[in-house]
């Protein structure tokens, strides 16, 4: 039995075709991956199925009957639930209140909270969605919030669950838990559509996979009959090196030295007396589950946060205050939160490429912007780094996530820095761009620069780093060589004590 058939779906936004004559068939009871790079049209397609967008043409059948889905309400009535990439929860409300919002149970006109709590507890038990029904959403972890979203869909009797990039916010352990939940859902006869751009996860969890590229379906395959290399090739349209080559390199003097650094946050100490040095020709990776002080460490190194104690030196020189002093001594920085820190989405590509250098030559002289120089530079960088944009005057907000990140990387690395602070450099970036960014960082290493890589992606840290530090609750809890095992690092990240020695 077919749970969903999308037939010849086309959707345009202005001149851009987000979906081009897409066919998709999902069997009941299967886990079906929708694989593709950012901007390939995965989310758009699923938003059409969920009634958030209307297709320009094409038809939809659910449970082998033609249907019209005009609003999410229609989709929910048909037993379709969607967990969005950005959760739609009210932080101040409890788990139960969030789950029932919009379909509250009432008795004599009063909210029947006891029954609701009981129902939700039952559901949670059945699918191993461990979460406290009376906890406030603002106090629970991101992984738990995701379970609340899944509960919301199940509470509305969803038979088909759409999960949009569900692992983007999860730790390796939480991802394993999610996969366990998905297997239970499947065992119970539910259908799951799993949107992702990660090959490993596609291979691990799905029965079949449909690859999308540039809005069109490339192929639908049985996962058992394919492999990561083939999927990557179909996804990007060319051969992709899944593992970058990391040749031996000459380790030189320490370029960045962090000594006994502590950072305060609103909730107390975020980073506690952290010390390390990054040498010329070295990539030092800091692994850790997000929220263990990495952001505070990053902002302290960049000069955006006060440090009660500790010193940061570049080339043995202590730094002045503020980001500008960092740039002057040759520090470049790829921020972990691209849209918050990395770019001004309303600014043009050209203006974003000079962010941080707007007062420096050759982009300005005595405070006046030199527009020709800026335009020449922008055109050169855009073509050199292969940033895909309509023009250098296009607002950066109109670029895909991968191209925005390429822009940030291009801006920072084209300054010819000595020290590169790369934070979550490939978050929300597709396979092709990941390969590109990794190679750029390795090129910096080969050129004798010092690279500090702060990342929650364990694969990335392991593939790139010469040494790995593990950060947990604001402290460096372990140092390992690059050949350390994944499970060992995973356990360290989760706070398990390092074994003696």
């Amino acid at each position, binding site marked *: 039995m077919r749970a969903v058939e999308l037939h010849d779906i086309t959707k345009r*936004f202005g001149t851009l075709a987000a979906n081009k004559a897409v066919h998709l068939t999902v069997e009941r009871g299967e886990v079906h991956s929708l694989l593709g790079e950012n901007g390939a049209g995965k989310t758009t397609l699923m938003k059409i199925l969920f009634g958030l967008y209307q297709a320009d043409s094409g038809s939809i059948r659910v449970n082998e009957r033609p249907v019209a889905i005009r609003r999410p309400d229609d989709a929910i009535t048909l037993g379709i639930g969607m967990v969005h990439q950005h959760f739609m929860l009210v932080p101040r409300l409890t788990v139960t209140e969030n789950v029932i919002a919009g379909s509250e149970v009432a008795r004599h006109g009063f909210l029947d909270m006891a029954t609701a709590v009981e129902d939700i507890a039952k559901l949670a038990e059945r699918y191993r969605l461990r979460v406290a029904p009376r906890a406030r959403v603002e106090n629970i972890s991101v992984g738990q919030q995701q379970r609340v979203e899944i509960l919301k869909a199940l509470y509305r009797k969803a038979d088909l669950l759409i999960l949009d990039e569900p692992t983007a916010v999860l730790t390796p352990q939480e991802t394993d838990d999610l996969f366990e939940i998905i297997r239970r859902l499947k065992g119970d006869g539910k259908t799951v559509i799993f949107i992702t751009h990660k090959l490993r996860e596609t291979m691990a969890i799905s029965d079949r996979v449909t690859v999308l590229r540039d809005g069109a379906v490339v192929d639908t395959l049985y996962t058992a009959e394919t492999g990561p290399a083939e999927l990557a090739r179909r996804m990007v349209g060319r051969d992709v090196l899944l593992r970058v080559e990391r040749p031996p390199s000459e380790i030189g003097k320490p370029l960045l030295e962090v000594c006994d650094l502590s950072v305060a946050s609103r909730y107390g100490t975020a980073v506690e007396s952290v010390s390390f040095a990054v040498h010329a020709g070295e990539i030092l990776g800091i692994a850790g589950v997000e929220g263990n002080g990495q952001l505070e460490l990053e902002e302290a190194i960049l000069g955006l946060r006060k440090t009660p104690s500790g010193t940061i030196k570049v080339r043995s020189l202590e730094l002045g205050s503020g980001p500008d002093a960092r740039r002057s001594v040759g520090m470049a920085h790829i921020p972990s939160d691209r849209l918050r820190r990395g770019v001004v989405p309303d*600014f043009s590509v050209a203006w974003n490429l000079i962010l941080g250098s707007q*007062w420096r030559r050759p982009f300005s002289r005595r405070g006046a912007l030199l527009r020709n120089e800026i335009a020449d530079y922008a055109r050169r960088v855009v073509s050199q780094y292969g940033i895909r944009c309509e023009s250098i005057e296009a607002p950066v907000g109109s670029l895909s996530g991968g191209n925005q990140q390429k822009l940030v990387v291009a801006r920072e690395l084209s300054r010819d820095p000595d020290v590169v602070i790369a934070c979550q450099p490939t978050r929300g970036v597709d396979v092709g761009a990941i390969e590109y960014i990794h190679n750029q960082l390795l090129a910096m290493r080969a050129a004798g620069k010092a690279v500090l890589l702060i990342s929650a992606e364990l694969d990335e840290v392991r593939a790139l780093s010469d040494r790995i530090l593990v950060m947990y609750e604001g402290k460096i809890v372990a140092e390992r060589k690059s050949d350390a095992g994944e499970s060992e690092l995973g356990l360290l990240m989760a706070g398990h004590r390092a074994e003696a020695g």
Partner: protein
Amino acid sequence: MTQKNDLTSVTAGARSRSSRLSGKVRAALTELGFSAFAITLALVISALLMITLGYDVGLAYQSMFRGAFGSLRGVSQTLLRATPLLFTGFAVAIAFRAGLFNIGAEGQLYWGALACALVALTVEGLPKTIAVALPLLAAGLAGFLWGAVPGILKARTGAHEVITSIMLNSIAIFATTHITSRYFMAPGAVDQTERIVAAAVMPQIIPGTGLTAGIFLGIAMAALVAWFFGHTALGYDFQAVGRNVDAAEYGGVSSKRIQVLAMGFGGMMAGVAGGIVVLSLLNRFVANFSPGYGFTGIAVAVLGRGNPWGVVLAALLFGALDSGGMSMQLFARIPSDLTIVVQGLVIILVAAPAALRAMVRWRKPNKVEPVDVA
């Protein structure tokens, strides 16, 4: 290979430049179209209002148009009334680009006017240019200092500039009245200073109309503001703070400094507005002289979408509504309150662009903004 790449990138550059131009022009025309539609709609609704109240709509709009554009005197009245609004419009628009709401233009205008008048009382014997320029500089400086206060409060304590700048308006109005009556009062019943010296009076372009070179100053200022935002590193910093304060900080911009400067620059514009009113219209400082130039400036900035040339057009429109309203009252016996109603309708309809766009979309269904394609 490399050569070919260069070639394609060059042609791509050329193509993008031409498409960018037409794109910008198209965007500007769309904005203009929406504003024109809003104005027309406001006039239609006002017409319906006049009909229900039993006025002659034809006569009313005829005399309104004549009053605003129909004669040299009408045109100069329109320009005269637009002049202070130009500057108060910039006062709001500049702060707005840095993400701040300057509701304090009215108070900044009063300090500018008083400082201007006091300096203009003393410039006896100086050449005309300097005798006019010095008081205007004083006006700008006073406006800057008063305007910077909410900026400093925000940077230091996080106090919201809307609240502080509104409150500072009342303080400015009462303080300037007090200072005038206590220290600089001219003989008579009115709280006003002596007449400024003749050298400081701005000459009239067309004698008898009251129109002075202030309007040209305003248009020159629009060019300066446009240049500031498009061509200077400081203008870049202003807009970076306005659009994404975290990224601006990351780019080495001190957002606190920009907040103080943006409010200060805004205040400077409002101060100059006050100075021009003193030098060209009142020829002295008069307590409580402003009919709300600073507040209308907010509407002008909103209607002009924060764009300096948009502000020019919006100020001209408001000037025209003002002078047209006068003659509408005179010839069609329609109370001037109705002019205010028309102005209000224009603001509501323009300030609610979402509603207007929705109306347009209503006719062309299925046109969704490309927000979330990824």
